């Protein structure tokens, strides 16, 4: 009883008293640090103080309205990424050129197929692919719209495609720019429909080739074989791949109450959802001739024949607003923002907000951030960062200003999360056991040391913004604790870093080592 009273008093001291019985006596700086670790990719130097002073709930509200946040600095940096000037048609042509050059090389008897292709066009292709990955890291590091960038990463994994699968090499950039990003904080239903119609997803999960059994096109289909000769392809059949992942991963969830029968019916509904000239980076196209003209039934709902593409749209709307979907996606959001094992209360709040607003993602997020579980001390610093979160938060903590050089993206890949390259449609995992293992931890330590020492081209740390060059190890450690670890540095860490820097004469080197140890150390792995 006594504890409860004490907690109630502590609550008053917290920013706006939004949290009730789980309430923790989080001080404004702690709340700011927590919010910056979850809604953002960690604090930049001075940011904890700024957010605490402005009011953490006000900052959260601002993050929930990204359109209102000025992001001109990032826009300037984005303009340096050439790849953004190319649409998917341009990229498809570039890809075709690389392929042609490779064929030519083979024909000329250059049999060392394993040797990297150093032709100018191949180099350009590789540079663009690397830019696409680096752009994700740069945006996460530099954008003022931090929550928005976190949500882009969330949906990119929820609606995963694989960058290295055939046409997705040139369809993926467009998918990120024009399918995911414009809808990352909109309505779930719109996002779901947009992904269903996106060439990248249609190609990734093979739906573009799925046609009703026995259907054949009114014109001959041709495909190009290895030798470059066009050959007539056989009529295609039905493909269940997209249907299955749509139900299992994108919407209802694996325990969402559907069966193999539903998967087949969904696949029938999506027959004809295809791509116009995929090898040229073409757009979505519905093929009437390929569509299954029979009646269908999904989850007990009838889809009467004769409605063509509308059947699919109707189905997507039904799925987007299905109770199982709402629960599944809400739970994933709580897992991302609150805890690897999300509390039921958090999920319930998110579900209620979803139902109230018909899937307005911003309102679902608001409900999570205003709920008691988000602020509960058991959930603070409870999550381990993914490789992307680790690298971006390290870049932010050291005030690095990354450019188009893909070194940070390579670092993320090295730590186990090569961006857009998760083969399976479930996207990169969120839970810590997927990321914490001895090899990966050593890699994180190495990455931290390299970054803090300023040895990473294109992402040079500016440690002056954390701590001045000082001969006083205690001051140095206190500054690092404040700016990088939000005041959570353990006594042991202070002692170890103190011991390490004590005999280094050059204060610049000492500072770099201290920052490297702090970022590679255990506290910084958590968010």
């Amino acid at each position, binding site marked *: 009883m006594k504890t409860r009273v004490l907690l109630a008093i502590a609550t008053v001291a917290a920013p706006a008293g939004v949290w009730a019985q789980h309430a923790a006596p989080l001080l404004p700086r702690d709340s700011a640090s927590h919010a910056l670790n979850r809604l953002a990719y960690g604090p930049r130097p001075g940011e904890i103080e700024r957010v605490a002073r402005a009011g953490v709930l006000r900052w959260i509200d601002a993050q929930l309205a990204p359109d209102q946040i000025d992001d001109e600095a990032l826009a300037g940096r984005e303009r340096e990424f050439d790849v953004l000037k190319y649409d998917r048609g341009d990229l498809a042509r570039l890809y075709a050129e690389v392929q042609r050059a490779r064929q030519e090389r083979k024909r000329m008897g250059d049999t060392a197929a394993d040797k990297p292709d150093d032709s100018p066009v191949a180099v350009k292709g590789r540079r663009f692919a690397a830019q696409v990955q680096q752009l994700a890291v740069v945006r996460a590091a530099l954008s003022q719209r931090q929550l928005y960038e976190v949500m882009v990463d969330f949906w990119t994994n929820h609606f995963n495609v694989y960058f290295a699968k055939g046409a997705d090499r040139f369809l993926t950039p467009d998918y990120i720019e024009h399918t995911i990003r414009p809808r990352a904080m909109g309505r779930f239903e719109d996002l779901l429909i947009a992904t269903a119609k996106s060439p990248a997803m249609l190609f990734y999960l093979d739906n573009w080739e799925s046609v009703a059994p026995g259907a054949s096109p009114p014109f001959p289909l041709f495909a190009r074989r290895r030798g470059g000769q066009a050959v007539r392809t056989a009529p295609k059949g039905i*493909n269940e*791949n997209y249907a299955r992942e749509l139900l299992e991963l994108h919407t209802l969830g694996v325990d969402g109450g559907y069966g193999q029968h539903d998967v087949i019916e969904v696949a029938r509904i999506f027959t004809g959802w295809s791509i116009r000239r995929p090898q040229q980076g073409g757009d979505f196209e519905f093929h009437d001739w390929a569509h299954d003209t029979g009646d269908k039934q999904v989850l007990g709902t009838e889809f009467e024949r004769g409605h063509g593409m509308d059947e699919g749209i109707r189905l997507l709307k039904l799925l987007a607003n299905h109770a199982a979907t709402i629960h599944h996606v809400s739970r994933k959001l709580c897992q991302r923002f609150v805890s690897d094992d999300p509390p039921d209360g958090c999920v319930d709040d998110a579900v209620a907000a979803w139902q109230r607003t018909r899937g307005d993602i911003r309102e679902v997020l608001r409900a999570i951030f205003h709920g008691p579980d988000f602020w509960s001390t058991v959930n603070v610093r409870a999550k381990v960062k993914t490789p992307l979160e680790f690298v971006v938060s390290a870049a932010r903590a050291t005030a690095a200003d990354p450019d188009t050089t893909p070194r940070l993206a390579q670092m993320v890949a090295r730590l186990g999360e090569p961006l857009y390259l998760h083969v399976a449609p479930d996207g990169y995992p969120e839970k810590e*056991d997927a990321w914490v*293992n*001895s090899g*990966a931890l*050593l890699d994180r330590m190495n990455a931290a*040391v390299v970054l803090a020492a300023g040895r990473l081209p294109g992402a040079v740390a500016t440690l002056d913004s954390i701590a001045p060059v000082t001969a006083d190890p205690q001051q140095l450690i206190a500054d690092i604790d404040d700016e990088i670890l939000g005041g959570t540095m353990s006594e042991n*860490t202070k002692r170890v870093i103190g011991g390490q820097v004590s005999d280094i004469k050059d204060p610049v080197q000492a500072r770099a080592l201290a920052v490297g140890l702090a970022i590679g150390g*255990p506290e910084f792995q958590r968010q």
Partner: protein
Amino acid sequence: MTISRRVFVKSGGIALFSVGLDPLFLARAALGLDRLSPPSTALSRPILVCLFQRGAVDGLNMIVPHGDPLYYRERPRIAVPGTDVVDLDGYFGLHPRLAALKPLWDSKRLAAIHAIGSPDATRSHFDAQDYMESGTPGVKATPDGWLNRYCRHDREHQDTPFRAVAFGPELPRILAGSAPSLAIADLQAFGLRAPQPAARDRLTRAFEELYAGSATGLLSTSSQEAFQAVQMLQRVDPTQYQPANGADYPRGKLGKAMLEIAQLIKADVGLQVAFADVTGWDTHVNQGASEGQLAARLSELGQALTAFAQDLGDKLDDVVVLTMSEFGRTVRENGNSGTDHGHATAMLVLGGPVNGGRVLGKWPGLDPANRFEGRDVAVTTDFRDLFAEVLARHLGARDLSTVFPGFTADPTRFPGAISG
């Protein structure tokens, strides 16, 4: 009682081990440490290498039932022609790109198990992989993997951080759990990096102290394993490795993983369970027959296994390589010259202890009446029967009830992959 091998490695001696452990363990543990620097062949211990073919390999085009005309009727575009198949027993044959494995078959060190799979009907990659790795088909809530549970159950070998190693950036589900296990993306680059050895050692010590004093939960256990592994690896120096007997590993992730597994086996650092992923088996479109997409993947697999066997030489007598895949693929080819998600598949078992030269398991045939749900090869061997046999007869596991909860390992159902 739980004895932490951590304590053991750190202490650098066997004095701590006076408590209730059998003498064999003490002897092995002591030898394990002594053997750190100069590799020796004085002591053989059984080793299991698991390869997961992620994406569901088409068992019918890997171990081809070329004696069945139905196979050719159902797969007009993607069947491997009888003239290309490497015949094994008049009915089954190897895909031609696996031909390099034939000598191992002939010397009875390679067996295949057909019509093996999960009792669970799911055709979802994620569910089926999950079940095969957790070892509990149909139960999603199992927190750990069966290889990890085996490691926990059999502590006899718990004397080195290299006891259970996954070759890849992430620790797979199959090794997830409380028994220490290691994920290694690149053996040569394992550990802290610094220009000079002195700087490297200093950095290593500093981080070790940081984690020893401040890490909690998984960060704590994983970091302890990391630093022990660094210590041991420093002494065996993987940068100097040369494959033996002219073994030629294929380029790519699998070849690299198999080479590193061979390296660790020969370095005698106590490796008992190794794991690697092989991806690219989800052949929905243009699967190919004797040539093509699947052929290319099988070729890499065959080359990697052959190189591994050559490289190990006599050491293969202690090793069993087990391939697994979450399910098989439809008997009938689909409209895209590929195959969709099916049910039973085929697995390979390779190594000295293998009862080889035979296709094991009960073959249900391709007759539609005997198929699962009318379309897929039916499962006649529960994958746990094979896994349990390998654990019991090769690694010497005694109590499998904790490794495969809810499943009774019955030797009469073992497919007979390991020679008794």
